[in-house]
């Protein structure tokens, strides 16, 4: 009985190594390559010299819907695209799990939502998600032009599904980008993300 318990613990520790964040703020963000909606492989390294935002999403998750139904996410995507920020919306839902859709359906959904990210990337085997330690949808990561990870965590400070909570919230992504683009240090580089679990 005790041996089984030990084995279970060992397994859990082993599994938890999967997603125990390999990434740290202040360190270089790992490069990755995964397909966009057209099936072309896209890599982080294509965009060296630019700010890059990674946004984990799942259109069926109520926390994601909170930010998309209010236009909050799309506004961020658009506002910062105009400032030269590259925005990747990444979907790591495994086939058969919530949020996973074939590319053409994903394209339609993103158009229905007026998603304004630079690219939507599909990561159905979860490689990129696990590389970054993406735990929830949404989960946000910001990479500075020199390749350093400068923010990871929640989109804002109101961990709810209520669309009304968007208005009064402190938006961590906006704050971090504004600080970094002004040459300042990011004051809150790490926060705890909230949302649905990523459906690996």
């Amino acid at each position, binding site marked *: 009985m005790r041996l089984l318990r030990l084995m279970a613990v060992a397994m*859990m520790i082993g599994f938890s190594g999967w997603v*125990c964040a390999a990434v740290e703020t202040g360190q270089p963000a790992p490069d990755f390559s995964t397909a966009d909606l057209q099936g072309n492989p896209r890599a982080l390294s294509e965009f060296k010299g630019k700010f890059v935002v990674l946004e984990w999403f799942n259109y069926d998750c109520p926390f994601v819907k909170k930010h998309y139904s209010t236009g909050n996410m799309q506004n961020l995507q658009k506002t910062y695209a105009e400032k030269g920020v590259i925005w990747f919306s990444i979907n790591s839902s495994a086939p058969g*799990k919530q949020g996973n859709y074939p590319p053409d359906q994903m394209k339609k959904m993103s158009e229905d939502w007026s998603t304004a990210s630079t690219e939507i990337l599909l990561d159905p085997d979860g490689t990129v998600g696990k590389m970054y330690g993406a735990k929830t949808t949404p989960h946000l990561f910001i990479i500075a032009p020199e390749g350093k990870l400068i923010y990871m965590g929640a989109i804002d400070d109101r961990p709810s599904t209520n669309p009304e909570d968007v208005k009064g919230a402190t938006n961590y992504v906006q704050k971090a980008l504004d600080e970094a683009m002004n040459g300042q240090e990011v004051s809150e580089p790490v926060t705890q993300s909230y949302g649905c*679990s990523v459906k690996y």
Partner: protein
Amino acid sequence: MMRNIFTIGFLLILNCLDYGEAAPVKTEEVEAELVTEVELVQPGRPFWVAVRFAMAPGWHIYWKNPGDSGMATSVEWEEVSGVKIQEIQWPAPERIRVSPSLVNFGYGGKVLLLTEIHPANSLDAGKPLSLTAQVQWVACQEICVPGQGEVTVALPVKRETPQVNSKWGKEFERTRGLLPIPLTSEVFQLTATQGQEKFILKMIPGKLISSQVTGSYFFPEDRGMVDYDAEQLFRQIPEGYELIIKRSSAADRFPDSLKGVLLIEEINQKRVFSMNVPLKG
């Protein structure tokens, strides 16, 4: 004259209403209703009510700190004159492993989130007392579904000793047994230190710990401090026991204290305590 007629009319209408619970709020995953431990309110005598949640098999709702994902269940009471509504008392949560890397704290099956109500001595006997709360939750299984609604209950107010509500009395009793009790030095003397990667909780047993402690787990109240997915290492040390808790990569640089619920497993029982230990180092 008119005022009296209105009052009588109002009271007559109220008399026609059933005392007790209004229809529960129902979604596919969760049923929420306001239940009471007593059948009437005696002015000046505190009594217990609860929001009772019943979850469909496999579904969970969340504790005040939901863990890696999900959302804390929220209960917001409408103010009522003549009564003081105390804070929600949360039974000890379960640790729920959602995936190889995610752990949540919450409840499955049924749970009562308890509240004590203090009616004033001067509360008007003869007028029913109506209590209403706005409830919000996120229920998760494989996926998450939010839910919300208003729950309400009306109780007669009488200057007599209330009987225990036969329908819910047992559930209230059972739930009170699941509430964390304040941890005193007669249970453990606790000291907490922190390093770069972990928090260390040292536990020196007091006289209320009579047998071998076989396990322990700390449920933090504050989000973003602890790595929920990592196992907490419990072991014996010369002075007693030690629990090593891994920090979250999102941890506050230097939190002041470890605040939350401590589960203690002994040979024949499990007990839960509420703790708030200052952090050194």
